[in-house]
């Protein structure tokens, strides 16, 4: 099936199988930040944005991006670098496996909220599982990142 889409701002077309999942397709297009952790819609690792909305690419049929804007971490390098600085500072990464999906969802969240509470943040990120950090260092990094963006996290 022919689809036309914008990947990280660049218009492209492709001929794909109807059953292909979006994460397979994105990897075939060289977006290796997109990984599949569970394949059962549970872990959040495969998060990408479709029309600026964060979704699980392991549950989206690639045919459904026809006419859509798709954003992966490859298209958000500057933002990712800025947030990664605070993650590094707070030791918010251990094995790093969860990182791509987590960063994609944090970058979506910072665009959504101006002054979230800690509970808002936990709720927004509850679909991003991390087996190493215990999430406390994540929270510290997010708070610093919000501050750097001129936003605040309410307690």
């Amino acid at each position, binding site marked *: 099936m022919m689809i036309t889409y914008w990947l990280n701002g660049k218009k492209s077309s492709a001929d794909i199988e109807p059953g292909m999942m979006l994460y397979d397709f994105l990897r075939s297009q060289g977006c290796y930040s997109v990984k599949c952790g569970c394949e059962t819609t549970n872990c959040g690792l495969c998060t990408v944005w479709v029309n600026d*909305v964060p979704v699980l690419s392991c549950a989206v049929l690639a045919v459904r991006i026809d006419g859509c804007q798709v954003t992966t971490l490859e298209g958000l390098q500057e933002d990712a670098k800025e947030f990664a600085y605070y993650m590094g500072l707070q030791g918010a990464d251990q094995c790093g496996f969860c990182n791509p999906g987590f960063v994609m969802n944090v970058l979506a969240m910072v665009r959504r909220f101006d002054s979230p509470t800690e509970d808002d943040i936990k709720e927004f990120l509850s679909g991003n599982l991390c087996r190493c950090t215990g999430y406390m260092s994540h929270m510290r990094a997010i708070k610093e990142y919000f501050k750097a963006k001129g936003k605040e996290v309410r307690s």
Partner: protein
Amino acid sequence: MNIVQYTKAASLEEAWELNQGRGAVVLGGCCWLRLSPQRRIAQAIDLSGLGLDAIEERDDSFKIGAMVTLGAFGSHEGLLTYTKGAVKEATRHIVGTQFRNLATIGGSISGRFGFSDIWTLLLALDADVELYKGGRVPLSDFGKTGPGKDIVSHIIVPKKSSQTAYASLRLNETDFPIIAAAVHVDGKDVRCAIGARPGRAEVMTLPVDTVKTLGCEKAGREFAEKVTYETNQRGSSEYRHDMAVVLCRRLLAQTMGDDV
């Protein structure tokens, strides 16, 4: 997924016609369908081009398109106000933001899952299901049949002067509920739905006056004892029963306050 033929339907009529064939499957958000990647889908029918992703607020009801995501359902201002936040409480534990941006109300209703938070809440709210050919049927009747070869186009939530509350108990934040309950009180009746028993939610009704006479504790027990509970990995039938009593009591106190 193993899809042989994919069609983005141009009308509900086309979707329905395609759905009469063998091996045809209607696609909602695909979050559940994608768990069976080997299942052969001879004809996948995509409803995403039919404008079914809108919630229409009317004087007497909310008309919710089948393709409305759980995220949109749980954050709709009109529904939040009408249900006193219960739509948010019933959706916020479901996996995560990215999941809720995909999974649909139509898929949640058609799947008739026993663990469903959505079923539990919508039963208490006395919702109807609109089928393309079958017309409008009460959700509890739809529970017995499912969509069959028909297509769910909308869910209708009637508006009444009422109070609603929702609660669930989970082993951890984004797991399936061990038990879920919703209470909806209008001027006349108290509707109480209990789900994740782990069987599909069931709804019971008592007159408001009866609940007032019994008080929250006894009325909560009365509701909880009208349904059966089973044991699975998440909890025993006894535990589910005991927790259902607690949730019903709390929800009655929340919705009826000083009246009981």
